[in-house]
């Protein structure tokens, strides 16, 4: 089982230039994080939802992601209006549920969901190693990309080794509980995982040196802007400018 997979597919979004998608995602997210206006936040949420539906992300996976985020936001929605000062909308005994806090929390929820939807729709659909290549073209520091590629490549491998070690422990009747034995057994497991990762990295480095590695990966994926990318960037820029102007006019 692999956990390092993207949402594969064959939609319009999947065919867009990854570089354009990266830039647009970051621009959109920061602009939304800046927004206070209801109109803007609503529109951003629609844009996010549109991107997710265009890229046909499976509903179950999307729901899991949104649930994880909104569990935290639900706590905010429940607690902040009670503790923040403001005109009460609801009074139950000594508890005042304040208007200001409620509005503040609702804005937060809209903002967070809009960003996550756009992020999932645009970047969750890029094949992960392609993302590395796109970063290379966007002049992200080379060492950082190497770290990214290696981590990505060996995440599943080490997860698999973890499972192997754990099943060996289970075969010897290991039962987790709240005691020192459990903590030290898990700690030994992590330490063993680190030992194996270090030994593996020596072998990897040896294999790379043998093939003449000189600190640079071949970048073999080159991207070209097609008409659809220009259209995407055009529409994207219009949306961003629209959001920005509306925000300035409103604030």
């Amino acid at each position: 089982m692999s956990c390092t997979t993207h949402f594969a597919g064959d939609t319009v979004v999947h065919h867009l230039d990854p570089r354009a998608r990266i830039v647009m995602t970051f621009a959109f997210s920061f602009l939304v994080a800046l927004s206070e206006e209801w109109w803007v936040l609503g529109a951003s949420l629609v844009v996010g939802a549109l991107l997710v539906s265009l890229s046909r992300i499976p509903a179950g996976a999307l729901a899991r992601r949104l649930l994880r985020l909104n569990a935290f936001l639900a706590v905010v929605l429940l607690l902040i209006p009670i503790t923040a000062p403001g005109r009460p909308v609801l009074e139950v005994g000594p508890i005042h549920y304040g208007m200001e806090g409620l509005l503040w929390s609702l804005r937060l929820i809209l903002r967070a969901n809009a960003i996550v939807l756009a992020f999932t729709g645009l970047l969750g659909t890029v094949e992960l190693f392609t993302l590395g290549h796109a970063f290379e073209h966007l002049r992200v520091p080379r060492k950082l990309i190497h770290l990214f590629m290696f981590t990505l490549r060996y995440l599943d491998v080490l997860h698999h080794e973890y499972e192997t070690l754990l099943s060996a422990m289970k075969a010897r009747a290991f039962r987790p509980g709240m005691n020192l034995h459990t903590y030290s057994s898990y700690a030994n497991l992590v330490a063993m995982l680190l030992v194996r990762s270090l030994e593996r990295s020596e072998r990897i480095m040896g294999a790379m040196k043998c093939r003449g590695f000189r600190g640079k990966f071949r970048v073999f994926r080159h991207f070209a802007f097609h008409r659809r990318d220009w259209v995407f960037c055009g529409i994207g820029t219009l949306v961003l400018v629209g959001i920005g102007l509306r925000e300035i006019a409103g604030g």
Partner: protein
Amino acid sequence: MHIADGVAPVPVAAAGAAIAAAGVAWGLRVLKDEQIPKAALMSAAIFAASVVIRLPLGPSAVHPVLNGLAGILLGWAAVPVFLVSLFLQALLFQFGGITTLGINTVTMGFPAVAVYGLFGGRLRRARTRRCTFLLGFGAGASAVLLSFALWAGVLILCGKQLAVIVGLALGPHLAVVAVEGMFTGFVAGFLARVYPAAFDVSEQMRREGGP
């Protein structure tokens, strides 16, 4: 202990990104080309372990944070390593977020570096098992404590209203600090006995990297 997208207003997010960028730049400078696979594989191991392991604690269970461990093993390289693994966590599981990538890198990575400065050298020189365990305990516990303090500070900067969440999180996190300390102590003890070379990566960087 991650801050999600949308919570942080842009000035806070931008400040976090700027501080993180400086730390990442320095971390990449001391990280030599030959050490990249080593750093990346240790990062993958730590990432996998912190996501899948659940330590039973009372009626619930906690994930180990392991940033103290990352600090003593990786030194300054822990900062770029955390940037990469936080980006992957946001992308794969929606932990944290992309506008808050900088902030989360600061709250996770900088305590790792501080812990490396405080305990890294001593841990290498430790000779007795008790000594290794205690230093590991100190590293794990103080890294999580520092991360929690930074997280709380940032959350209050994001909105004074959020202080109530910090208050609620305080109790459970103090328990996490203790568990994390023990856990890191045990890991350090195992590595010191079985594979002391694990502590050499950060030491090499300190000797060869930097000005």
